[in-house]
């Protein structure tokens, strides 16, 4: 049995700090760093809303796979960004590296433009770590 990317405790803590600073402190409700098998690597939540992150990650992995297959059909390698907009809450996905996704759940108080900027920042910092 081989493992995905392996993380040690320090790495996970460093990633948690990045996600806290760049996203949670900004007002984002929930961030999940996950792999494409649907495993949750890091999860941070703010406020009192708790999401079922394991189910979310499983579905996000499936969704990402489906959208990548769509990308291939139109001649793209993949779509590295995905965004689902809701009335109150929205979900943003960004690829971090091969096999790793960052999923962000945020509400109307956070603008999409700003969120994208911050996600890009966080992704860059995580990439530097792994």
């Amino acid at each position: 049995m081989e493992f995905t990317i392996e993380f040690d405790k320090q790495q996970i803590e460093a990633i948690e700090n990045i996600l806290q600073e760049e996203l949670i402190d900004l007002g984002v409700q929930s961030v999940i760093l996950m792999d494409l098998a649907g495993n949750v690597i890091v999860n941070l939540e703010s406020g009192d809303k708790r999401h079922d992150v394991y189910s979310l990650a499983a579905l996000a992995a499936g969704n990402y796979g489906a959208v990548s297959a769509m990308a291939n059909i139109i001649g793209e390698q993949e779509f590295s960004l995905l965004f689902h907009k809701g009335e109150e809450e929205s979900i943003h996905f960004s690829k971090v590296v091969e096999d790793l996704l960052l999923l962000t759940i945020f509400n109307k108080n956070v603008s999409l433009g700003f969120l994208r900027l911050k996600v890009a920042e966080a992704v860059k910092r995580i990439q530097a770590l792994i």
Partner: protein
Amino acid sequence: MALINPKKKEVQVKIVYYGPGRGGKTTNLEYINRKFKKRIQSEMVTVKTYGDRTLFFDFLPFDIGEIKGHSIKIQLYTVPGQVKYNATRRLVLRGVDGIVFVADSMDLRREMNIRSLQNLKENLETFNKNIFNIPLVMQYNKRDLEEEGIPILSIDTLQKDLNSRLQAPFFPASAVRGDNVAATMKKIIAFTVSSLRKKLE
């Protein structure tokens, strides 16, 4: 490809129920969901398509005990069995740690079982995995049909067709009645966790 989180002291284990469409994979998970309700905090997730067939997977997370101080999160998935969904079926196999192959005992489904097992083998190969090296349990489902006078394959025939080379542990079962559903699940969990434990040591 189980995921170990050294900070949360948690291992995530992915088990996939594979097999021909209409063989009883979803029925297995539904039974487990009912029977083990107490240990399952989240709802079972089913991604359906038109009609009542699974497009992506059914997903059922639950917790069982520990290995080496790590809590174990088991994630059970089923795949869509229909031929046209191979792309999604393959995706669900990404990072799989253990497999239950749910075969349909009905006489009429003999070829479909064989084809589905072959398809599993090929899909695993695309992830550089060998069906002989991954924990696998066979389930011969729908044994109850015999009582209704519906012709079913003998266990011998199923063993010859599907398990002569694999030599995997096997269970005759009836997912609608719940016969051997828990036994199949316990076997694949024990098998997968023990092969993981060896990796952790």
